[in-house]
């Protein structure tokens, strides 16, 4: 729509961002208006290692604590200990990552200044603030043998908070105007839940002895299969934003995730009698789960950077609603003289 002759490239009718990056679009670009190709929404300032890393760690810790309780109750001592340590470490690293990502780190305690259900980040801060100490006490008690009663209580507490810690982050990212995140809100919690189980099972396969790893192997295969399946469903239902999963980094991470999860599934099933094969499969599951989160994170960034992901679906939505939009009713896209052409009610 803009017809400025002089652009950054000195050319007419060029969308600067695409031209400068020399991208080949997957499909011919949809016709849409934009302001010199500038993004509509501002770019997230979250850093991948901190935030996508936290989504992974929160999932790992959350699911590990649930599994630790299962191992604890079913008398799998070494498995329980490995998972409790995993939960405690993940909880601690999560806290570090979140504080590290703040623009004002010294004010991290302001996260607990209020409680707002309208802010998944507020809810999550409280969950993590309760989870991390519980997971730490559970692990410390197991390692030292001190206060086993309190240890069991902490194990139970961490297991109760774990599922929320592992999944609320899906609401956190979906609750934004970023197309590839928001448009995935229906399926993302299930992708995150599956991915969390995959990673915790992977950790168990790496760290626990073979004879205690039966449940972990079962859950690893189930989790990875569910992760692959739900991620696919999520993409298929999200419309144009799906293309963002095939841009640059997101595409690479997603291929890595799929490959590693596939290897993890096959390895877990085939190598059930080998400690080494189990550990390698577990490592593949852990890495695959992490790549799933990084792929989703990067797809969001890509969808925020290109105005087409914001404009095209919104324009289609407006047109589908027909007369319901502001511009169509109150003011009329159509020339004033075209309005009477609508059949008057008889």
């Amino acid at each position, binding site marked *: 729509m803009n017809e400025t002759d002089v652009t*950054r490239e000195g050319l007419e009718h060029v969308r600067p961002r695409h031209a400068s990056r020399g991208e080949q679009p997957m499909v011919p670009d949809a016709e849409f208006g934009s302001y010199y190709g500038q993004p509509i929404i501002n770019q997230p300032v979250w850093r991948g290692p901190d935030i996508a890393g936290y989504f992974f760690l929160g999932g790992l810790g959350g699911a590990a604590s649930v599994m630790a309780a299962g191992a604890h109750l079913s008398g799998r001592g070494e498995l329980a200990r490995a998972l409790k340590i995993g939960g405690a470490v993940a909880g601690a690293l999560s806290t570090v990552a979140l504080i590290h990502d*703040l*623009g004002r780190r010294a*004010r991290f305690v302001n996260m607990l200044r*209020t409680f707002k259900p309208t802010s998944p*980040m507020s809810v999550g801060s409280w969950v993590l603030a309760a989870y991390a100490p519980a997971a730490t006490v559970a692990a410390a008690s197991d390692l030292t043998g001190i206060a086993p009663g309190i240890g069991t209580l902490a194990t139970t507490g961490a297991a109760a908070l774990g599922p929320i810690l592992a999944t609320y982050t899906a609401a956190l990212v979906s609750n*934004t105007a970023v197309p590839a995140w928001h448009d995935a*809100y229906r399926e993302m919690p299930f992708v995150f839940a599956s991915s969390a189980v995959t990673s915790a099972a992977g950790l168990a396969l790496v760290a626990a002895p073979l004879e205690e790893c039966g449940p972990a192997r079962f859950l690893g295969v189930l989790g990875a299969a569910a992760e692959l399946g739900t991620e696919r469903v999520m993409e298929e239902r999200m419309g144009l934003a799906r293309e963002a999963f095939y841009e640059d980094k997101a595409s690479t991470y997603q291929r890595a995730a799929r490959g590693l999860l596939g290897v993890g599934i096959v390895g877990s099933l085939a190598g059930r009698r080998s400690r080494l094969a189990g550990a390698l499969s577990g490592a593949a599951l852990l890495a695959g789960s992490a790549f799933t989160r990084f792929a989703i994170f990067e797809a969001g960034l890509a969808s925020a950077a290109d105005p087409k992901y914001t404009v095209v679906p919104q324009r289609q939505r407006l047109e589908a609603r027909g007369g319901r939009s502001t511009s169509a009713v109150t003011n009329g896209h159509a*020339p004033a003289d075209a309005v009477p052409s609508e059949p008057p009610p008889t």
Partner: protein
Amino acid sequence: MAPNPFRSLLEEADPATASGYVDHPPRMGFFTDTSVCIGCKACEVACKEWNHVPEDGLRYTGMSYDNTVGLGADTWRHVVFIEQRTRLAHQLAGAAAGDGATSGIRWLMASDVCKHCTHAACLDVCPTGALLRTEFGTVVVQEDICNGCGYCIPACPYGVIDQRHGDGRAWKCTLCYDRISVGAEPACAKACPTDSIQFGALDELHERADRRLAQLHEAGVADARLYGRDPGDGVGGDGAFFLLLDDPEVYGLPPDPVVTTRDLPAMWRRVATAAVVLAGTVTLGFVRRAR
């Protein structure tokens, strides 16, 4: 603050009332009539001066006369410049025009600003309570509370709020909270030489905008439309709304913005379901093997 956190999304049309203010002044806002904007950027300058907004790069963009690019932490008013090969209503072709209809050019200029949404996503998602609703129905960041978590930034459907480099906190237009609290108009509106930026009680601005729109339609400017005027839109209407002469996306505005928290109840339900499925699956994993 409010007993039901989703209350403001469900019922109350007045954001100050929904936030718990009992005896509050009328909702104040901006009506930016872009049809009389001359692109002088006095609003950008006045805003920066009054609010001590730091310089954020002097660079050449090639985007017509716009080297400001967009709203952000250090740009609270942004004048867009759009050159189009079309005429504005009965506008005569330019002086250089010798070949009739195709040589007409119109220049659209518009001063963009924070919309101070009725349902403000930035405010909803802020985990610290740094973002607050004022008694005027506007949305303001408390700079002594914000810890720079960055959640408000991708939550805003308009791309308004952003993080300031070297500072770490989120910043945006305050609708000159300090000035309007003592009865003065915001710096941008005060500086605007053509009254393209009009400040006042929102109800009154709505009436004024409706009259202006009718006047323009009568004059043959069929493309004129109001943006952010409709309380029934995805953000419950804007406290700062616009008269535009082309589609919103041409100005860099989203054509159908929706407050992301509209879908949050559904998101929480899905998270709860996924959490239960997770716990159930793990339990199954252990029970199955325990037999």
